[in-house]
């Protein structure tokens, strides 16, 4: 396998409603920052790929207009996935593995604030039996949470503890939308949003953008003091139909983690894309993490959840910590679809 590393990362602060900038204006600063930090001149980057979803803006081909942020002239080699930017990263990684290019720019953006996000997300369900009932994303997550608590015997207090820890850690992140000290008992005194989930169990609705640069082998060593090498990367998908899955575990995460080589060494920290508190516990179980693994030091998606960005952000946040030397070996995870339907796991290491 070819050595490929993340050499730079940039992300905007997550905000509830970005009223100033359109999507292009949101993407431009993060792309510029990531490219500048990579030390690779923009014109020399071999491949560009983005992840976004037109349903968020309610505008067909909004990902094409977003290219105005890139400067695609003379024509560049470019692609797009209608998924979280983590899957754009995967496509770029495959391209690098094939030896076609030595560097790639990956970016993603999401302005969730323009529509009613829980309803927009309903449209990812099967259009015959489920979507016509309009179960919103929070209600589906609540079904999963209920099943998880019943099966494992864990409590709503355990969920509140995840929220409190995430938002406490997020105090150190300039990108966080929700940060602060929250008392678990106080959180538990709040009413249910959709039982057994309370507001703190759910992610904020966020607008934001992120970008990173990948480089292979010697180029990565040349431009970065300590590149975050991608030692393993895999993604797996489970059935679309929620009724045909065990929602209380994540077999796709476990399988992706095994193939990415998570268990081949000690894990210092993990950035897990868990928009809902109970999902972090499901993912920890799936990846076999004990208490020694620091999870979501950035605050995770509970502190800021720009759709289509939050998964790529897990790779970026984990990579930054490896590049800084805060971690020797880190795991990054991204999810897509309702109730953790599809999952990607990557292992990042310093030299």
């Amino acid at each position: 396998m070819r050595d490929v590393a993340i050499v730079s990362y940039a992300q905007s602060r997550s905000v509830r409603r970005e009223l100033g900038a359109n999507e292009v204006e949101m993407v431009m600063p993060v792309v510029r920052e990531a490219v500048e930090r990579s030390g690779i001149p923009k014109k020399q980057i071999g491949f560009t790929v983005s992840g976004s979803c037109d349903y968020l803006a309610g505008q067909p081909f909004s990902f094409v207009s977003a290219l105005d942020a890139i400067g695609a002239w003379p024509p560049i080699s470019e692609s797009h996935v209608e998924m979280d930017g983590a899957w754009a990263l995967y496509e770029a990684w495959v391209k690098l593995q094939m030896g076609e290019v030595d560097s790639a720019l990956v970016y993603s953006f999401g302005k969730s604030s323009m529509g009613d996000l829980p309803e927009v997300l309903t449209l990812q369900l099967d259009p015959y039996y489920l979507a016509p009932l309009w179960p919103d994303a929070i209600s589906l997550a609540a079904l999963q949470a209920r099943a998880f608590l019943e099966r494992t015997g864990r409590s709503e207090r355990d969920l509140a503890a995840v929220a409190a820890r995430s938002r406490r850690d997020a105090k150190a992140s300039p990108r966080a939308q929700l940060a602060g000290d929250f008392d678990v008992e106080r959180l538990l005194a709040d009413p249910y949003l959709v039982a057994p989930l309370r507001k703190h169990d759910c992610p904020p609705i966020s607008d934001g953008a992120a970008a990173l640069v990948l480089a292979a082998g010697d180029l990565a060593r040349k431009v970065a003091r300590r590149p975050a090498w991608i030692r393993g990367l895999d993604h797996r998908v489970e059935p679309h139909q929620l009724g045909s899955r065990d929602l209380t575990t994540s077999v796709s995460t476990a399988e992706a983690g095994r193939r990415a080589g998570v268990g081949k060494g000690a894990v210092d920290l993990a950035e897990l894309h868990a928009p809902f508190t109970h999902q972090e516990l499901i993912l920890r179980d799936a990846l076999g993490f004990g208490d020694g693994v620091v999870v979501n030091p950035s605050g995770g998606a509970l502190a800021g959840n720009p759709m289509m960005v939050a998964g790529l952000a897990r790779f970026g946040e984990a990579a930054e910590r490896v590049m800084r030397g805060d971690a020797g070996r880190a795991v990054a995870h991204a999810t897509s679809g309702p109730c953790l339907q599809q999952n990607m796991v990557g292992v990042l290491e310093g030299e």
Partner: protein
Amino acid sequence: MSEAKPVRAISTPIRLEYSYTAGRASTRFLRGMAQGRILGQRCPECGKVYVPPRGSCATCGVPTEEEVEVTGKGTVTTFCIVRIPSENLSIPPPFTCAHILLDGADLPFFALIQECPFDQVRMGMRVEAVWVPKEELGPTFECIKHFRPIDEPDAAYETYKEHL
């Protein structure tokens, strides 16, 4: 049961509402419209002027910040006569739809041509914007009702061939 007819189709109505945010560049442009002005932006790298502006130069991939005001005069780069009726049209066909390159701008946009017989519309024709009455101005591109010919010699092909 065996006599029941098979279900051949189902109807699942979907309706989503969005609040569109224009962004910084479009906001400037739309505010300009409300004042009867046409505002564009110049790329700091290639010098091209975008009307309406989107906040970036799509060619260079850099933010465009310098504001440039242009007049309502321009040149028809290409056109077509629309004869097909369709829903939501504000005027009945036939009508002339044209690409218009405003003087000082580097990006043509679509607009209606009126006050001109169909057989006289031509590439290179000089036109000017016809605005709605002052009291009807607002933050919308519809402040410009249409374009009409002006008494000026046609623009030379070389002056707009890059924009076809």
